[in-house]
């Protein structure tokens, strides 16, 4: 009886105790602010004005807010292209650089990884110098060679392309490292067996590498999706969300409404909507992955 209760303690309470510091941090900095945010979304208040409960009015306004939906669709476009291209690009880099057999592999890994160590503000400033219309390096070189400058940051479509490109450049190195770890965890015997069986490289990739890398790819996809929905600094520095609303994402709009228009309640409602969207996409990703694993 005594040993049974001791076993229970080890199995239930002890792990909980070990997790307690993390649970406390998570609760203090994530759960409580999220609950507070939800509460604020039902109110009208500014930094210097008293709080007034207004029920669902903020959410009703949100449904009719054209700028919010514009930033919402921008966020979806940005996220879709950033996440999918990051996955393809970082997987390609990882496949090239995971074997530890090529000369200079470590150097290239470092080179591709370095951008992910920089703050997005630094990245944004650097790329503004490169892509600026009048003062940018690329346009300077184009004009020097007799060509026309390209409106990287002032054309409504190209500005989004530029932002997506820079985001991929800045983040792919990090995901490359995650995928390299995933690739190196795949048993080499499987590749040897497939080689003996005469499998072609594409078949090996699709029938061995991809299935065994799926859980790592899911992690990359979820992390990249969450990061893309929260992208703020890079866009603020590079385009300020412009031209017009062309590159303005929900997070920029939340910041503007909260701190420039001083509408904390409405900004909280936007944040709650954003949180729900991220949660929905994450659940969807897990669900799809779960279904595929069931089929296997």
């Amino acid at each position, binding site marked *: 009886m005594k040993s049974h209760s001791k076993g229970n303690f080890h199995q239930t309470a002890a792990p909980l105790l070990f997790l307690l510091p993390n649970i406390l941090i998570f609760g203090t900095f994530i759960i409580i602010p999220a609950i507070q945010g939800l509460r604020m979304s039902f109110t009208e208040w500014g*930094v*210097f004005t008293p709080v007034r409960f207004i029920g669902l009015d903020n959410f009703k306004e949100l449904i009719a807010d054209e700028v919010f939906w514009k930033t919402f669709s921008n966020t979806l476009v940005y996220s879709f292209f950033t996440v999918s291209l990051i996955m393809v690009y970082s997987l390609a880099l990882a496949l090239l650089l995971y074997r530890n057999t090529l000369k200079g592999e470590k150097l290239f890994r470092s080179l591709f990884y370095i951008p992910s160590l920089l703050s997005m503000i630094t990245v944004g400033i650097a790329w503004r110098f490169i892509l*600026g*219309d*009048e*003062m940018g390096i690329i346009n300077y070189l184009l004009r020097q060679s007799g060509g026309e400058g390209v*409106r990287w*940051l*002032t054309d*409504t479509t190209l*500005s989004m392309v530029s932002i997506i490109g820079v985001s991929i450049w800045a983040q792919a190195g990090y995901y490359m490292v995650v995928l390299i770890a995933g690739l190196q965890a795949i048993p080499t015997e499987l590749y040897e067996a497939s080689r003996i069986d005469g499998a072609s490289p594409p078949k090996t990739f699709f029938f061995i590498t991809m299935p065994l890398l799926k859980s790592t790819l899911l992690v990359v996809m979820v992390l990249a999706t969450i990061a893309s929905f929260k992208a703020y600094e890079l866009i603020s520095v590079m*385009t*300020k969300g*412009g*031209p*017009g*609303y062309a590159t303005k994402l929900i997070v920029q709009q939340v910041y*503007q409404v909260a*701190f*420039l*228009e*001083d*509408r904390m309640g409405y900004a909280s409602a936007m944040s709650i909507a954003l949180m729900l969207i991220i949660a929905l996409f994450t659940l969807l990703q897990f669900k799809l992955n779960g279904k595929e694993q069931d089929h296997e």
Partner: protein
Amino acid sequence: MKKLCVTLMLVMLAVTTLFAAGAKEDASKKDVTLSVLWFNDGNESEVFLKTMDDYLKANPNITLDLQIVAYNEYDQKLKLMISGGNPPDLARITTNTLSVVVDSLEPIDNHVQDIEAVKKQYLPSMVAFASNKDGKFVAYPTEATANGMLVNKTAFNNAGIDVDEVSKTWTWGEWETIIKKVLAANPKMKYGLAVDFTPHRFSTIMYQWGGHFLNADQSSINFNNPGTIETLKWFKHVHDAALLPKSVWLGSENPAELFQAGLVAGHIGGSWNINTYNKNVKDFEWKAVRMPKGLINSSVPGGKFVASFKGSKNQAEAFKFMAAFADKTHNEIYSRDTFNIPSRNDAVVTYPSNSEDFKVFLEELKVTPAFTADEWKNTNLSKVTTYIREQIVEVLLGNITAEQAAANVDTKGAPYFK
């Protein structure tokens, strides 16, 4: 023995506590660290410290904890400090910031004997900006600012145009003709004028065309008016005609950099650019000229201030410090070394150079209608300015008409004035 030990410990504890309390009380009387929140347009923090060096030497118990924040993040940082109950002892603030935090500022009235005598020392527009809705004086003006036009004089000379002469009476229509000649004579120069990417600078031209943001008694937003619509149309026209670079309003490129690179013939910006260009421009001759006339001539008055807050920890010392910083001697030194227009009536500043440029900005201020200051100190207007900027860009992109933009701004702004 046990009792003796306990008694001894209690005595020691009491003595230690007494000493500690005494030391704390003594320190509060002597050493004060004033927390100062600051931002820079140019070299202001450096000059501020240099200007107040004599005060700090005369008051060795005062030290400054100067925190310099980028202007982009300044308002947010200050608002969070105030709302978190931890405002700085004093902060440098602009007219924009002042309109947002005005209710949190500690009135100077509570710290001086004769507030009217204090107010009389400063330019009337500065006093208007620094007065709250109850008429209390809430900030010491440190420098006056104005929007104006700085031109590449060399480029005008190359076109055989005496910019000093033509700018005395030119209209925007005449400016367009002249600037086309200037561009033709300077193949490397691409544009005629760069206007800062802010509604504040846009409003300079808007006021000249008879436009406004608010109605006459400031009780509601009224961006949808003929003068403003006319300005929006003109602004689109000059962008489409490549007289103004699209990269500033569509790509947030820095107009001061374009001017310094010799890519634009003129720049409508703040008076602090005199300081920047004085230091950086070596390749060509530049100067301040009067802006072309629309229906009227106008600038936009502005200024910088220092203020303390309700709940600041060292208010008494902060007010003594601010009063010293804003006195005649210190204001003259600070204005001279930062190349700014002094905020005081009695200040006599001899700048090492560019005195004529400052005169031009002062002349612009003199003809500026008084309502422009009232509009820019309106707290509610500050909540819509980012939206106004976005709507102007939408017009430039051709996504909406000037009329639609003006109507959208009024719809967006109306709830703030209820």
